[in-house]
C-alpha cells in the first residue's frame, strides 16, 4: 500500500453532540485480503455522517463489523463509553444499531404491517393482534408522510416503496444508530425526497445516521460530516461545509477529477438497428434507430418502459406490434438466442437477479455466452476458456482472487464488470447497458465509460439506459426520454437543458399512491 495511511487528518470538531460510537484501531482481515486497515473514528449522536469510497474501499466491511454480521479481526468498538463485542446482529440491534440495505431484505409475501413488526409482533394471549398492528403501522407510515397502505403485500409495492418501508421499519425499534447503505439506488426522486425527510427527522431526534452513497450531490445535501475510505484505508474526515466534490473524489481515487464522463466523438456510421412503432408489455409505439459509433441514451423514471423496451428488442418478451430492422432487413427475434446470434448483447438492470450466476466461478460467468465458440467439437477448449477469462479479468481490472473465485465473492463494481465483460469476447455489434453504473463507484464508472469509447471505436452501437440524468446527458449522442411507456422527447447531444429533460420525464402526477410500477 502507499503511504496514504500517513495522511490521516484528525476528525474536525464541529458539533457539540456527544460521541456515541467510537472505533479504535478497528481492523478486518480476510484470508488473502486486508479488507479494513486499522481505523480510528468517532460518530456523534444526532449527526449525519456520510461514508464515501470506491467499491472495495471497505465500506461494506465496516458496516458488517458495526452490525455484528462479521467479527472484527482486532481493535475496539466503544458504544456510549463502554467497549462492546458486536459479535452478533442480535447484539447490535439490542444496542440500537440498525441498517437499511441497498437491496431490500424483507419478506415480500407478508404485508407491510407484518414486515414493520417482524420479530416484534403485537401478541396477546398467544395470538397476533393483526388489526392493531396494521393500525399502528399505518400511523407510523402516515406520520412519515409516505402515503402507503399498511395492509398491502410488500411484494406489490415498487422497489422504491419497499425501501421506504425498510427505512420506516428501522425507526420503530428504538434505533440510536442507523446505517443507510446506498438507499436511493432504486428510488425515484420523489421517494428519495421522502427518505431524506425521514433521515432529517431522525437526526433531529438525536439518532446518528451513517449514510453511504456514491451520489455526491446526496452527500452534500444531507451530511454534516463525511469520511473517506480508499482501498481499505481510512483516508480522513471532513466537515461538509469545508470540502467540495473535487476534494472528496481526489481523496477517494487518489487522483484529480479528470473527465469522469469521458466521451470521444466517433463518426456515426451505418444504421445497426431500427425499431418502427414497436409496442409490447409496458411500452407502446416506440421508434428509434441506433447507428455504428453512436450512444443512444434512454432516460426516464424506473418503470417508464425503458427496460421493457430493450428486453423486448432482445427477445425476452414478445412484441405486440411493430417491426425491428437489423442491418436494414426485417428480423423476427423470438428469443434471447436469436438476438445474440444477430449480434446483440444485454447487460441487464439487476446484477443479482439477471446478470450473474453468483455461486459459480468468475471464469464461467465471463465465458457463458461464448462456450459454443470456444468448444472444439464436443469439448470445451480449456486453454481458450482460460485465455478469454484471464483476458477480461486483466483488461477490465476485475479485482478477484482469480477466475475460479465465486462471483459472489466480488464487490458490486467488480461484479458489474463481469456482467459487461462477458459480452466483450462475443463480438457483438449492439450493446444494451441497462443502468450499468448503479451502485458503482466513481473510479469504476470512469472505467465503464472508457469502455464505451472502445466499443464505439470498433464500430459498435450502444443503447444506454439510465435513471441518472448526468450520465445519459454527458454520454448520449441521441437522448430519448421515456414517460409511462411512451417515448415523449428526443434530443441531440446537449441540445436540451437538464430541467427540460427532467420535466419531460416527470410530467405531473407521475405516481399513483401505493400504485404499481
Amino acid at each position, binding site marked *: 500500500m502507499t503511504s496514504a495511511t500517513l495522511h490521516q487528518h484528525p476528525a474536525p470538531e464541529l458539533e457539540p453532540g456527544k460521541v456515541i460510537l467510537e472505533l479504535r484501531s478497528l481492523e478486518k482481515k480476510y*484470508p488473502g485480503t486486508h479488507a479494513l486497515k486499522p481505523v480510528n473514528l468517532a460518530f456523534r449522536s444526532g449527526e449525519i455522517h456520510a461514508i464515501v469510497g470506491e467499491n472495495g474501499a471497505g465500506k461494506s466491511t465496516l458496516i458488517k463489523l458495526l452490525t455484528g454480521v462479521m467479527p472484527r479481526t482486532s481493535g475496539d468498538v466503544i458504544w456510549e463509553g463502554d467497549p462492546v463485542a458486536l459479535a452478533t446482529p442480535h447484539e447490535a440491534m439490542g444496542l440500537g444499531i440498525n441498517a437499511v440495505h441497498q437491496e431490500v431484505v424483507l419478506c415480500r409475501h407478508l404485508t407491510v404491517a407484518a414486515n414493520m413488526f417482524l420479530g416484534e409482533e403485537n401478541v396477546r394471549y398467544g395470538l397476533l393482534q393483526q388489526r392493531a398492528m396494521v393500525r399502528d403501522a399505518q400511523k407510523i407510515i402516515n406520520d412519515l408522510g409516505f402515503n402507503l397502505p399498511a395492509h398491502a403485500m410488500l411484494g406489490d409495492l415498487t422497489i422504491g416503496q419497499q425501501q421506504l418501508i425498510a427505512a420506516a421499519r428501522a425507526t420503530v425499534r428504538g434505533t440510536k444508530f442507523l446505517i443507510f447503505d446506498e438507499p436511493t439506488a432504486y428510488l425515484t426522486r420523489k421517494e428519495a425526497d421522502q427518505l431524506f425527510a425521514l433521515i432529517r427527522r431522525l437526526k433531529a431526534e438525536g439518532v446518528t445516521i451513517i449514510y453511504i452513497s456514491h451520489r455526491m450531490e446526496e452527500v452534500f445535501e444531507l451530511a454534516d460530516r463525511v469520511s473517506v475510505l480508499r482501498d481499505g484505508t481510512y483516508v480522513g474526515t471532513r466537515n461538509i461545509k469545508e470540502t467540495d466534490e473535487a476534494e472528496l473524489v481526489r481523496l477517494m481515487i487518489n487522483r484529480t477529477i479528470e473527465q469522469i464522463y469521458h466521451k470521444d466523438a466517433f463518426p456515426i456510421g451505418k444504421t445497426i438497428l431500427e425499431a418502427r412503432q414497436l409496442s409490447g408489455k409496458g411500452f407502446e409505439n416506440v421508434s428509434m434507430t441506433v447507428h455504428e459509433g453512436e450512444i443512444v441514451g434512454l432516460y426516464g423514471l424506473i418503470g417508464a418502459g425503458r427496460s421493457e423496451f430493450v428486453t423486448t428488442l432482445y427477445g425476452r418478451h414478445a412484441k405486440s406490434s411493430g417491426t425491428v430492422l437489423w442491418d436494414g432487413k426485417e428480423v423476427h427475434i423470438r428469443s434471447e438466442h436469436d438476438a445474440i446470434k444477430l449480434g446483440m448483447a444485454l447487460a441487464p438492470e439487476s446484477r443479482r437477479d*439477471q446478470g450473474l450466476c453468483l455461486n459459480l466461478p468468475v471464469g464461467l460467468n465471463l465465458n457463458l455466452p461464448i462456450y*459454443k465458440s470456444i468448444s472444439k467439437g464436443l469439448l470445451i477448449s480449456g486453454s481458450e476458456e482460460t485465455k478469454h477469462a484471464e483476458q477480461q479479468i486483466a483488461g477490465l481490472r476485475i479485482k478477484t482472487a*482469480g477466475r475460479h473465485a465465486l462471483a459472489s465473492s466480488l464487490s458490486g463494481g467488480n461484479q458489474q464488470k463481469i456482467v459487461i465483460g462477458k459480452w466483450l469476447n462475443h463480438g457483438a455489434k449492439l450493446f444494451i447497458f441497462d443502468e450499468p453504473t448503479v451502485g458503482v463507484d466513481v473510479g469504476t464508472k470512469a472505467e465503464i465509460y472508457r469502455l464505451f469509447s472502445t466499443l464505439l471505436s470498433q464500430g459498435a452501437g450502444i443503447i444506454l439506459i439510465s435513471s441518472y440524468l448526468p450520465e445519459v446527458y454527458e454520454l448520449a449522442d441521441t437522448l430519448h426520454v421515456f414517460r409511462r411507456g411512451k417515448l415523449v422527447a428526443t434530443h441531440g447531444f446537449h441540445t436540451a437543458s437538464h430541467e427540460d429533460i427532467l420535466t419531460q420525464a416527470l410530467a405531473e402526477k407521475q405516481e399513483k399512491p401505493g400504485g404499481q410500477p
Partner: protein
Amino acid sequence: MSTEAIPAEKPKRNYNALFGLTLLALLVLLWILLSFSTSSFATANNISNLLRQGSMIAILAVGQTFVIITGGIDLSVGAVVGFATVTTAMLINSGLPVFVAILITLLIGVAIGLFHGFGIVKMGLPPFIITLATLTSLRGIGLLMTNGNSISINNDAFQEFSRGSFVGVPNLFWMVILVGVPAYIFLHHTRWGRYLFSVGSNAEAARLSGVNVQRTIYMAYTLSGLCAAFVGVLLASRIGIGNPTQAEGWELQAIASSVIGGTSLFGAVGSVHGPLLGAFILATINNGANLLNVNAFWQRVITGVLIIVIVYFDGLRRRGSK
C-alpha cells in the same frame, strides 16, 4: 490509483477434487476398519459383491446429480428402474434380440425424461410434483402390465452378464465406469455441463446470456431417465425377473448418494465422482453392517445419521473457506 494489487493468493481451485479426496479417504478408512474388524470383508467374493451392490445406485446417482445441479429433483428413478425391468423382461421374452430389447427400454427411459422436461418447462409444474406423479403412476402401469406378477426372463446369457466379471472386476462395476467417464467429460468438459450449472445458479442470467434454458432442463431429466432405464436393464439381468415393484426407495438412495457426494440441493454445485463415491460409501456401510451382524433396521438409521453428518461438515467447510 496505483496499479491495483490483485490479491495473489491461490484460490481453492480444485474444490471438487479436494472434496472427492476427503470422501475417498472416508471410503478407504471404512474399508480398512472393516478389514480388521471382520474376517469376511476383505475377501474377493465380498468385495465383488459390494461393488455389485453399489453399482446400480451409483449410476442412478449420476443421472440424479445432473438434475439436482439444475436445481431440480427426480423422484421417479426408482419407479423407472422397476418399470424398465418389466419392459426388458417382456421384450426379451417376446423373442426380440437382447440388444434390441435393451435399446427399446433405454428409449422408454429417454421418453420418460422428456415427459418430465415437458411437464416442467411447458406445463410449469415443479419438478418434485411431476416426478412424484411419475413415480406412483409408473409403478401402477407396471402392475397393470404384469397383473402384479413377476415375469421370469428366459434368457440365461442375459442373466449371466450381471454375475460375470472382466479382468477380475464385476461387469456391473464396469458399467459404472462406462457411465461415469462420459458423464464426467460431459459435466466438466462440455458446454452443456456448464449450462447445467448456470441454469441451477441463475436461470434468468443464463437465459439472458444466450443459454437455452428449456433445452438444458429437458437434457437433465432425459439423462436421468436414461440412467434409470439402464439400471433397470442391469437389475433385470441381476435378478432374472421383471417386476414393477422392484427398486423401491432407490430414488432416495440415489439422492442420498448425490448429497453425500457434495451435490447441493439448491443447485449449481455438484460433480460426477462425488455421487459415485457417495453410493459406494452407502453400499459399504450396508455391507459392513451385514457382516457385523448389525440389525438391518439399524442400517437405515445409520444412513440417515451419516447424511446429516457429512452434509453438515461439508457446509461448515464451505462457509469457512469463503
